[in-house]
């Protein structure tokens, strides 16, 4: 199952090239993340109008929604990177997949925590078995499984491949899990009002939200790249270019 890919694809597979290109990208993403997050936060928390039903407590969506979206994207990215690593035997893809897992899990925790904090004034309880929150909890469990498996192997190469398979199995299951949880929720708790499904949010509310989502993407891209770069250095520690990088850093 080998598909011919363009040249840049194979170049990306070279750890050194990856290290260099991410080194060039990092400052740009950092600047973008800071700008977007500051704009989005200030806009969302200060200038966006208060919600007519929930007052100011709704403002936590500016963190809750982006983290919910990112937790899912990171799982997808982890599984796809794992698949690329399996099919093309690309070590860098496994490095990226491995870096995704702990980041994704922490974003999922953030999403759950902000959901709980939002739930207190809205529902009067820290935890309600809302479909979205429950699905996010299961997603966190999937992340925990991947992290546990990844750390159980002594051999890096097998742990890479094993976690790639597990995350692919999880990826196939996520839509089924989401559907089943939603279905279970409507069965047991009909017509509770859901947090994020608000009809027609006005632009002055959703534009800062969009900025926050983009900011989150940039911010976690920075974290992902930094983690992956350290992992690359660790894995390639005996190669010449890493020695050079480390020496230059020492100067």
């Amino acid at each position, binding site marked *: 199952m080998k598909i011919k890919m363009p040249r840049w694809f194979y170049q990306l597979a070279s750890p050194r090239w990856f290290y260099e290109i991410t080194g060039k990208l990092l400052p740009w993403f950092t600047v973008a993340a800071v700008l977007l997050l500051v704009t989005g936060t200030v806009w969302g928390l200060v200038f966006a109008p208060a919600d007519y039903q929930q007052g100011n407590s709704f403002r936590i969506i500016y963190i809750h929604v982006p983290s919910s979206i990112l937790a899912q994207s990171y799982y997808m990215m982890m599984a796809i990177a794992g698949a690329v690593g399996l099919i093309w035997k690309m070590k860098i893809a496994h490095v990226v997949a491995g870096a995704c897992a702990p980041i994704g899990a922490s974003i999922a925790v953030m999403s759950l925590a902000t959901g709980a904090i939002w739930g207190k004034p809205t529902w009067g309880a820290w935890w309600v078995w809302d479909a979205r929150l429950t699905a996010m909890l299961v997603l966190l469990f999937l992340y925990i*499984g991947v992290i546990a*498996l990844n750390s159980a192997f002594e051999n890096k190469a097998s742990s890479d491949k094993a976690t790639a398979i597990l995350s692919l199995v999880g990826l196939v299951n996520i839509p089924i899990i989401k559907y089943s949880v939603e279905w279970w929720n409507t069965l047991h708790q009909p017509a509770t009002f859901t947090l994020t499904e608000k009809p027609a949010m006005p632009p002055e509310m959703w534009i800062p939200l969009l900025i926050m989502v983009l900011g989150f993407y940039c911010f976690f891209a920075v974290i992902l790249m930094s983690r992956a770069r350290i992992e690359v250095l660790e894995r390639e520690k005996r190669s010449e270019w890493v020695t050079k990088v480390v020496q230059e850093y020492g100067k």
Partner: protein
Amino acid sequence: MNFFMSALKRDLLLVFRHRNDIINPLAFFLMVAVLFPLGVSPDPTFLSEVAPGVIWVAALLACLLSVDGIFRTDYEDGSLEQMLVSSESLYLVVLAKVLTHWLVSGFCLAIISPLVAMMFFLPEQGYFSLVVSLLLGTPTLSLMGAIGAALTVALRKGGVLISLLVLPLYIPVLIFGAGTVQAGAMGLGIQGYLALLAAILVLSLMLAPFAISAALKISVRS
């Protein structure tokens, strides 16, 4: 087909030589179910209300407990290596093993589940839906569990790890399985639920053996 039959025959023979392995998941199933009345309340209305969920959770845990060993002895005595250096398809070997596991876990659980249902005062019209949902749902549990077992077979600390990997994947089957029994006990139609369980089964039957084979190769070649 011939090869599949002889693989199945070998696995069944191995089960027959270790007859205790058939009893263990069943005993576990009964014990877990008994914990609920003891831990919460023996009140019949309460029990009949929680019966679908409790019986399904107990069956799920019994499947999970037994699936850990599905490839272990083959890994430890070198049989798995021989299966990998064979020109015969690993897919069929895997399928035979999963089918054997289901026969000694899920199938037997479904057969004795009315006994537990009686102890939990499940309305009699729910018995049929309980047995059918277990028959349709537990093969998926065996298939998913085998993925976890194949991924962890080379690791010494398999037991807890496999639960972490597999339990989240069991959630849809639990939801639809318990849902079937609830609907059946209330005298509602269960075709929709069974169709969902069957769809999940078909999907996992198509995809899981590939994941299992790939995972076994990784475990052996590490």
